[in-house]
């Protein structure tokens, strides 16, 4: 579903990704762990198409399409969802307005009929309930005045409404307390765990992976995937630390 090959990317002329290769199949939830500065967020930003990231080599195919041939909004409409580590505040635009416009823009791109106001609200209510978010929050401005935890929860409501084929979630677990982590994790399971979907969970910690059990785990270090394994790899990282596991991998 997502096939990354030999990806090299620079930020401000500095190489960050240095030959990253990774494959995520349909039906797979793949966790990426790694120390700070390894390139985890860069990977998410490159996949999303954030300005300021220069791809110097390699390729990414998403559902068989050359991802880099698509504009960021086209990637979204093709089914790629990027969960932000720091969701952006948009003063003056309500969540309801933002998400309805976004959903209908995606549907239009795919040649589907737009949702009416009523249809959209029904869907939004359902997804907000799934993430235990008050509908009143959705009437407020996008992320404005939301706590860190509320922003992450709102990201998952957005994901539920947009119903992507593939989600790249960049440290969605940061800033969440234990209860919110459970709600968000359950949300990810409910929305993304399906035979025709996939997800890349970028995280520092095992605690999200206790709720969203990954099928595969990869370690990202110095711009490359240095090891891939099953869920037990995450547990080993938690116990032994990155240095020990990576020393072993390179030995």
């Amino acid at each position: 579903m997502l096939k990354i090959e030999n990806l090299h990317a620079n930020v401000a002329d500095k190489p960050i990704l240095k030959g990253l290769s990774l494959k995520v199949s349909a039906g797979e939830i793949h966790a990426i762990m790694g120390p700070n500065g390894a390139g985890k967020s860069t990977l998410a930003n490159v996949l999303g198409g954030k300005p300021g990231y220069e791809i110097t080599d390699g390729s990414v195919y998403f559902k068989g399409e050359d991802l880099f041939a698509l504009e960021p909004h086209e990637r979204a409409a093709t089914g790629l969802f990027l969960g932000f580590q720091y969701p952006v505040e948009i003063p003056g635009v309500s969540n309801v307005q933002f998400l309805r416009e976004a959903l209908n823009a995606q549907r239009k791109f795919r040649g589907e009929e737009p949702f009416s106001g009523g249809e959209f609200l029904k869907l939004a209510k359902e997804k907000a309930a799934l993430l235990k978010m008050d509908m009143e929050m959705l009437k407020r401005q996008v992320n404005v005045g939301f706590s860190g935890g509320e922003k992450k929860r709102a990201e998952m409501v957005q994901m539920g409404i947009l119903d992507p084929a593939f989600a790249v979630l960049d440290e969605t677990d940061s800033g969440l307390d234990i209860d919110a982590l459970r709600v968000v994790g359950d949300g990810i399971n409910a929305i993304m765990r399906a035979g025709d979907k996939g997800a890349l969970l970028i995280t520092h910690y095992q605690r999200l992976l206790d709720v969203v059990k990954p099928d595969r785990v990869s370690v990202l270090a110095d711009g490359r995937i240095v090891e891939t394994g099953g869920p037990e790899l995450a547990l080993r990282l938690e116990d032994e630390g990155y240095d020990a596991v990576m020393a072993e991998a390179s030995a």
Partner: protein
Amino acid sequence: MTQTTTTLPTRRDEAWRYADVDAVGKLGIEALDQWKEITLGAGETYHHAMVVGSDAPELHRIRLILGQGARAELFVANAGRDYTRVEVHVTLGKGAHFEFGGITIGGGDAVREFVTTTVHAEPEATSNQTVRSVHWGKGSGNFLGEIKVVKDAQKTDAAQDFKALLLEAGASANAVPQLEIYADDVKCAHGATVGQLDEAARYYMAARGLSPELAQRLLVQAFIGDAFVAMDDEAARETLLHAALGALEEASL
């Protein structure tokens, strides 16, 4: 006023320093004497919403005289494709209130401007002015707001707020707040900022599937909305916002 204007303004005149004086010349000197005069008696109210601007220069001059406790609300969408100037001169009686909301929006090389003179002539009057400008190409938007508080106009509360959003390099905005205060117990606030579209917000919106055009439209809509928050008349507000956003559609950015 009965006096007749005999000379065209020049850019050396403070109130015309950013004006397109050639366009004023095209309008002819008589245009400068055409004031719409509105006088409100004690406790009276006046609400007016207008869309101005066309393919030709326009000059709109309005003089408001407010009696004790009177209230005037004026909201303007200025989407001219040529020089379009709205000038408002307000004199406030005791405890009167003046509310002004304006938008200038457009590209090309046209100048759109609001020039207000608010005279707090008696105590306890309040005024609140909010202007938002959105420009691209070589377009520009100006807000020249003069506030005069006479010696006896204690407890005056006057506020001016200007924000401009420039969508392209080459567009410009000018804010000239001018305060002339002779009373000592007054509150006068003014703020002006000029910025560009929030890149982080644009990327975030793209990541959710909004094209750059749609994202820009939503962001501009949110930005200009401030100018009309004080409007009670929903339908009139929609009309003004629609006119402003219609101008944005013509932008091929």
